[in-house]
Every structure is written in C-alpha cells, then in structure tokens.
C-alpha cells in the first residue's frame, strides 16, 4: 500500500486540476465519461503488470488489440447473432497468444522482448493477410454496446473495468500473486523454494493476452474498426505500469498502482487537451513527464525505503 501512495497523490492532483479547468468533470456524467475513456488502457495496464512484475515484457498487446478488432469486424460482419460466439473466440485468441508468448519465453528461453516483438510482427502481418490489407466487415450493435452503451447511467466499460480491477487485486493477493512476485524478484530462489516459475510466467502472459482481448472489445465499440486502433498501446501500457512505480525487471510494485498509473496517464491526456496543448506537442509533454516521474521515483525511493539487495541494479 505504501508504494501506491505517490502515484495516487499525483492522480489526485491531476484530477483536481482537471476539475478546476472543467467543473463539469465533477458531475457523475463527466467523471463516468472519463472512466469510460480510461477503461481500455487501465485493463491493458493490469494485464501488462502481471508480465512486468514477473520480470518480462509484453510488446504484442498493441497489435493483438488491432488483430482482435479486425477479426471481430470480419467475422461478425454486421450480423447480431454472431456477437457472443465471436466474443468467446476473441477471448480464446487472447489467451492463446499469451500462451504462445509464455511458452516460447520460458521453454525455449528466448527473451520476452524478442518473443513478443516477433508476435507483434506475426499478428499484424497475419491479420491483414487474412483481410487483404484493410479492415473489412462491421461490428454488430450488440458488440459495440460494451464500449458505448451502459446499464442505466453507468457505462458497461466502467462495470467491466471494476470487475477486472477487483479480479486483478484478488489474484495478486492469492497464492498466485505471491509466487509471481517471488518469480520476478529472484527467479532462481523462487524455483528453489518450490515455485513453478515457468507456469507462473505463462499464466502472466495469458492474463496479458486476456486483458488485450477485453480492451479490444471495449475499444472496438468505443473507437470503431480501424487498422490503427491498437497502435502504440503496448508502449502506453508499459509506461502506465512504470508510472505506477512498478520496476521493469520484476519483483516490485502493486497492481493497484499500475492501474492508478494508467488513470494518471489518461488524466494527463485529458488535462493537456483542456489546456489547449493538443495535437503533436502532447507527445512532447508526455515524454518529459514520463521521464521526470520515473526519475523522481528512482532517485528518491531508495532513500525513503530500505534498499534491498539488487535494487541499484534494477532501478538503473
């Protein structure tokens, strides 16, 4: 909990700044719209957290999201009755991609950076090979409802986000979470104390694939079908997780902080838009803030908390 405090404080400051610039933000409708917009990135960040805390990377989530949306559009093709089977298929594809990433990483001993980079190329190539270069077909209204519609005033995506968040926190409190953190902290020690290290990592990759599938379902409804829908999401998700104070290299950080990092990133975008720094310069500000935030964490954390063996190494 102690480690989630800094990012929560930053998030509160950003939200307050948004509220000052735009009082509408404090009304339930305005705040729910923000949550709805943030939901896909927060879910992706939760998935990415599992992989990062176990000491690996998942660069394939962006192209997985694109692939899922394109597959859904082509298979549904406007036919409402196909909605549920296709959603089930998307989730299976997400889990399967995660399984392949995990198995190649752990059993073939290929660095996950390379495995998921290869998966990124394979997914984006394969899906456009299948559709002939551009997305085809259309999503059904039922499918789009998850990203657009809601249960009364509460958008579906916010409910899904709550469910995913609760599940992620529960997972990290269960035995699985403890073995996962142990694996990321010191793989050999974890293995020697009886953790099935490979299995933990494969499950982490599968959770990341599952998160990408859920995010794709939300984004497909929210943003529609395009070849760019998932572009750059892998970097946004990793950035969000790191903003939350989770250390690349594994073993440290909480899933709540990772999700708070994603909210912070989204709040930052909103704030930049409100203050008229839109378009390209937004990236510049984003770049500066990410470096500054991570630098602040890296420089001050060792003083505030007792450094453990290997920290100097992990923070650099």
């Amino acid at each position, binding site marked *: 909990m102690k480690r989630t405090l800094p990012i929560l404080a930053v998030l509160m400051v950003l939200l307050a700044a948004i509220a000052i610039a735009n009082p509408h933000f404090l009304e339930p409708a305005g705040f729910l719209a923000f949550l709805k917009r943030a939901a896909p990135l927060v879910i992706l960040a939760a998935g990415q957290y599992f992989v990062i805390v176990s000491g690996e990377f998942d660069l394939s989530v962006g192209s997985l999201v694109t692939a899922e949306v394109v597959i859904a559009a082509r298979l549904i093709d406007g036919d409402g009755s196909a909605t549920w089977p296709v959603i089930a298929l998307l989730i299976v594809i997400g889990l399967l991609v995660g399984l392949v990433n995990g198995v190649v990483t752990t059993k073939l001993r*290929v*660095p996950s950076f390379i495995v998921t980079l290869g998966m990124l190329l394979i997914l984006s190539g394969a899906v456009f090979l299948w559709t002939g270069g551009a997305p085809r077909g259309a999503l059904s209204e039922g499918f789009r409802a998850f990203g657009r519609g809601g249960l009364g005033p509460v958008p579906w995506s916010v409910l899904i986000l709550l469910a995913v968040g609760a599940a992620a926190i529960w997972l990290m409190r269960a035995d699985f979470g403890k073995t996962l953190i142990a694996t990321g902290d010191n793989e050999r020690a974890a293995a020697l104390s009886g953790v099935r290290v490979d299995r933990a990592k494969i499950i982490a990759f599968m959770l990341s694939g599952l998160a990408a599938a859920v995010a794709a379902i939300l984004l497909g409804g929210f943003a529609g079908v395009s070849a760019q829908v998932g572009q750059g999401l892998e970097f946004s998700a*990793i950035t969000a997780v790191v903003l939350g104070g989770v250390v*690349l290299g594994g073993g440290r950080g909480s899933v709540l902080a990772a999700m708070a990092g994603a909210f912070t990133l989204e709040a930052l975008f909103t704030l930049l838009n409100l203050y008229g720094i839109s378009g390209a310069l937004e990236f510049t500000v984003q770049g*500066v803030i*990410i*470096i500054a935030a991570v*630098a602040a964490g890296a420089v001050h954390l060792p003083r505030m908390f007792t450094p453990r063996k290997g920290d100097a190494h992990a923070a650099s």
Partner: protein
Amino acid sequence: MNTLSRARRPAPRSEARGGLAARLREPTQVVFLALLALIALGWVLVALDGGQFLTMESVVGIQQRSAALGIVAIGQTLAILAGSLDLSVAYLISLTSLVAAEIMAGRDGNVLPAVAAVLGVSALVGLVNGLVITRLRVHAFIATLGVALIIKGVVDHLYDGPAGKVPESFQLLGYSRIGPIPVSAVLWAGVAVVAWFLLSRTRLGYRVYAVGGNEEVARLSGIRTGRAIVLTHVLCSVCAGIAGLLLASRLGAGAPTVGTDGGYDLESIAAVVLGGTALAGGKGGVSGTVGGVLLLAVLDTIFNQLEVNSFVKDVVRGVVIVVAVAVYARRIKGRSV
C-alpha cells in the same frame, strides 16, 4: 541494466575455457551460416519460379535496402552491448532527415553545415539519452521511449509533410555506385569498421563489454560505467543521424515519418539480436549485426522476387527472429550444462 532478461541467461561457464575472441566469434558464425543457407534456399526457390536470384540488380538492391537499417543497427549494437537499448532512433532519423534537408535547402554550399548540424543534433540527443539513464537512473526502455515521444511531438508539431530540399550533389550518396557497390553500402561498411575497431581494439570497447556483462562488477573494477553508457548512446544516436542523412539524400527531402515508416527502432533491435548479440548486453559484436541485417535484406529480396504478399513477409520475419534467438539460447544452454 540487464534486467531485460536477467534470469534468461544461463551462466556462461565456458568463458573460462575459450578466450574472449573465441566466445564472441561463435554466434556470428551461426548468422553467416544461416545467411548462406538462406541465399542457397532463395536461389533454388527463385530458380523454380523461373527467375534468376543473384542478378546484379538484386545484389545492388540487397545492399541498398540494408544500408540505412545497417547503420542504425550498428549503433544499436553498441547500446545493447553496454546493457542498454535505444527506442528513440526511429524518430531521431525523421528529425535528422528534416534538419539536413532544411539546412541544405537545395544549395551545394550548405551540405557541410547541414552534415555538421545533423551530427551535432544527434550527438546531443544521445547525450540526453545517456544522461537520463545514468544520472537520473531511469530504465533505458523508459528513458529512450520518453525521448522518442519528445522528438515525435516536436517533429509532428512543426511539419505535416516532406520539407526542405537536398541538392543533386548530395543525392549521389543515396543512389550512385562504384561498380556493383552502392556508395551507401560503402558508408555502412565504414561505420561498421569504425564500430568494430572501437569495440575490439580500444579501451572503450573493453569497457562496453564489461559494463554490459555486469555493471556492478565493472564499477567495482574501477570502470566509470556511467561514462561508457553515455558514450555508447552518443555513438548510437550519431549512427541514427547518419542514417537520417542517407535517407534524406534518397528522398531528396526530409520527411517526418521516414524513420517510423521504416520501423527502425524495433527492426534495428531485431537485427542486432538476430546477429547473436545478447539483449541483456555484454555478448556479441558488430559482425553478427551485419549478418543479421543482410539476412533480413536477403529475406526481403526473396519475397520481392517471388512477389509474395507483403504481409506474409511480416509473419515470416517475426517467426525467423524468434526461431533464431531460440536456437542461440539452446546453443548457450548446451554448452553451459
């Protein structure tokens, strides 16, 4: 620094037996063997298709196609060997192509100032990358991603499309050739030789391997690790700047998307790893990277000659990269157990 794949790398116990040079040569041999096998396979496939594989045209094409990526990948090799990596090269290439074309503005007399400005800008970006990583202790992945975003923002804010003009004389760099060898390939070879010399014949090179192998041990042995990392980042960015110059001379102008369209950030990392350099740092070399880049270019040429859909190319490329690294991992494991 080597947290990218900290536990993936089994302890290289063979180090005690083989010398440093013997150990470095090994993975590069594999990539050149694979290259030869691929050329043979391509020759058979293209011949079955009724064409001729190694024509003058395709050999020149392979060299031209690989020159820009090759130069970036050489720089990336230095950064990765030091246990770091650079995700900002793609945007830096776009930026430097614009800087070059804008300063040249179509006049021959401005070529030298433009080249100097490009080298200066890229060295500065590399310095920032290096200092953020070493002084602010930000993970290289995040630091260079952040710098990439900063450059992207500036470039996209100032430019919507191609800008500036490169004089005819400078365009010769991109297109002219000496016999079967394009000038751009000579430039690539030059950069590779300089990098090879730096890594294998100077103290800096020795330090780079030491820092990449184990930063803490290197520091305790009296190496100023920060300085070595900053230097590799400066050199890596300068290589990206040279690639930017080359691409500007090919296009005849600067373009804000030339670096990202080529996917030079991830592609250069893939080429380095394909060449047998360990992503965790400390192991590998320039010659492997040259082999890796050539392998990707030959693969491209085969697909072009067989007129295969470009999306198949991406799929095969992804599979080749993963399989190659899996093979390297297996060899290392086989030796150490």
